């Protein structure tokens, strides 16, 4: 123990000297570096205008507590003292500003914050993967923007995000450009994504006509279906259905008309909400490419600029929820290493016509084939499995309902819903069979599956960081397995569902030959 201590002590002066040398070297380097970075070399606070933003935000966050306090204060007959409660969040907001400072020096971005528990976040510049510039309405009113520096950490804790909350908008943009510029390119990783143009090239621009797809998006349809299904279920549970005839109706219109009207109203409401949501998030959507990175900007109230390094773009996902698919539309998102779980940031195209989306996918990947090529289907065993899995549970529900009706003597109407579900699952299963497919083309693993939410994922082989083969007892009996290619980006993995086992191993082998020393032989041993 003491020896170790001596060792450390003995090294310390050297280490100090090294640091000093490094510091001087860096300072020289920094002085030669772009203006924005040089300006940020000293510890400094964020923009003073944030003193307005933080208190407002804290007040909003504390609003429930404040309201509670206010009610309690009024109820206990206290005087004006309860209004003092507002001071607490304001103080907190001011302190947040005063205790936060950052610097960009010695090749690192460093952020200090916190009064009671102090955080110092520090990351090397060459680890910077994405730089987002976000501006909420408050920020925009004051001409500010938040710079979020993404470093590819798996942490979802908001305390550990590197957010420079509140820089003047112009400075934020400059900082972004320079941060991305400084991050050195790594050779050999997806270098072939796209030809490097000298100037920024706009690939996709928002089109008002796309608004027609908004009501069909997953969100709208899911909300509507959830509300309707949940409502029906609830009524069913409460036994309202069987009581309907005996109840008095003062409405003056038949119950079915009322129900249909209510459903229509609900649909219109959901559609309007969906359109508004679409507008708010995707207004002025613009996807462009400049040398080395992709830029996305969008937003009506809160504007959001995202930059994605070419090398971090591992692949794309073409999502086709049922509604969009029927309307010939799709959406596109990127699989980006280092963007974490914030999938919404990675959207490359809002719901838009399928042709447009596929075209953008082709341009982003630098090759059209992963988006358009034919996929290998998974064979009869996988198809059988789709049918049994879709219809089986529905049949079980029907059987249970039948038992209940026969046993407890409920109304035969109870059987209609389960029977309808069974009938609906057959085309669903057929569609899922049609969707199922995979291939390996142009260095991309492509997989497609799902029906209600069909998605086609293309992942660059370079970005596959591991394989998982998962098979339940049922799957093993049919010689199927689910192959999962894990990656550091997007949803963290690409799943090839129910692929025949030999094919799965072959796919993994073709994709990453160097792994096969361990892998193929083990599988061979097992069989």
């Amino acid at each position, binding site marked *: 123990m003491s020896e170790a201590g001596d060792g450390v002590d003995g090294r310390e002066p050297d280490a100090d000297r090294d640091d000093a040398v490094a510091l001087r070297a860096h300072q020289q380097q920094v002085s030669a570096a772009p203006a924005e970075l040089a300006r940020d070399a000293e510890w400094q606070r964020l923009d003073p205008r944030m003193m307005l933003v933080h208190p407002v935000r804290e007040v909003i966050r504390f609003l429930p507590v404040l309201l509670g306090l206010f009610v309690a204060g009024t109820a206990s007959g206290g005087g004006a003292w309860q209004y003092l409660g507002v001071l607490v969040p304001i103080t907190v907001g001011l302190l947040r500003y005063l205790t936060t400072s950052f610097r960009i020096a010695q090749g690192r971005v460093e952020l200090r914050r916190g009064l009671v528990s102090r955080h110092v976040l520090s990351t090397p510049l060459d680890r910077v993967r994405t730089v987002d510039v976000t501006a909420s309405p408050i920020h925009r009113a004051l001409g500010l923007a938040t710079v979020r520096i993404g470093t590819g950490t798996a942490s979802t804790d908001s305390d550990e995000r590197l957010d420079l909350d509140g820089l003047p908008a112009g400075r934020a943009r400059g900082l972004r450009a320079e941060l991305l510029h400084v991050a050195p390119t790594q050779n050999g990783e997806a270098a072939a994504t796209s030809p490097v143009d000298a100037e920024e090239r706009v690939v996709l621009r928002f089109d008002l006509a796309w608004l027609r797809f908004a009501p069909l998006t997953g969100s709208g349809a899911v909300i509507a279906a959830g509300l309707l299904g949940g409502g029906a279920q609830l009524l069913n549970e409460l036994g309202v259905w069987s009581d309907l005839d005996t109840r008095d109706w003062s409405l003056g219109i038949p119950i079915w008309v009322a129900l249909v009207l209510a459903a229509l109203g609900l649909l219109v409401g959901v559609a309007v909400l969906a359109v508004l949501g679409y507008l708010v998030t995707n207004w002025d959507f613009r996807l462009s490419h400049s040398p080395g990175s992709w830029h996305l900007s969008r937003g009506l109230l809160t504007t959001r600029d995202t930059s994605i390094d070419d090398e971090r773009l591992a692949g794309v996902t073409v999502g086709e929820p049922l509604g969009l698919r029927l309307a010939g539309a799709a959406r596109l998102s990127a699989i980006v290493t280092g963007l974490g779980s914030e999938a919404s940031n990675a959207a490359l195209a809002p719901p838009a016509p399928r042709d447009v989306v596929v075209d953008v996918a082709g341009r982003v990947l630098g090759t059209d084939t992963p988006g358009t090529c034919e996929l290998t289907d998974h064979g009869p065993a996988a198809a059988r499995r789709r049918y049994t899995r879709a219809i089986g549970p529905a049949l079980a529900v029907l059987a249970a309902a039948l038992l209940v009706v026969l046993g407890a003597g409920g109304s035969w109407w109870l059987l209609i819903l389960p029977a309808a579900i069974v009938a609906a699952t057959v085309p669903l299963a057929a569609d899922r069979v049609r969707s199922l497919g995979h291939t390996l083309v142009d260095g991309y693993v492509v997989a497609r599956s799902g029906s209600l939410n069909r998605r086609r994922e293309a992942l660059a082989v370079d970005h596959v*960081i591991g394989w*998982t083969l*998962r*098979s339940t007892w049922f799957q093993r009996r049919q010689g199927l397995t689910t192959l999962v290619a894990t*990656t550091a980006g997007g949803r963290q*993995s690409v799943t090839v569902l129910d692929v025949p086992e030999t094919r799965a191993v072959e796919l993994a082998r073709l994709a990453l030959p160097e*792994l096969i*020393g361990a892998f193929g032989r083990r599988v061979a041993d097992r069989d």
Partner: protein
Amino acid sequence: MWLVGCLGEGMVTLAILTGAALAWDSFPARWWLVGAAVVLVLGYAAVVPQWRYLVHRWEVSDTAVYTQTGWWARERRIAPMSRIQTVDYAEGALSRLFGLATVTVTTASAAGALRIEGLDKALAQRLVDELTLKADAVEGDAT
């Protein structure tokens, strides 16, 4: 290339399940239900740990780490050495009782972590050292 069988984690599982069954016994429920549960638990404890033990394999080559786990749903995972980010060594309370340890190998993907459970302590330590050395020797930033 080498392959070492893992040590029995079955005992650990059994202990957990018996504990759970005991906890349930104190609950004043209908006795036949408890009896059925005990039978189920005993059956589970008799079969599943053995099954798990039979399935559970792992190996380390120069280029990759490979594990096979599970019983009903069998899962095989492979992580290239170049993509390993951290190697964790953990001893749970129960596994310490049996002198065992768990080694977790994580990659940059949340979906790709490999757990090797129920390793003999000394072996686990050696494995951690080896993996750390090998992962360190490979170039790249592990994404």
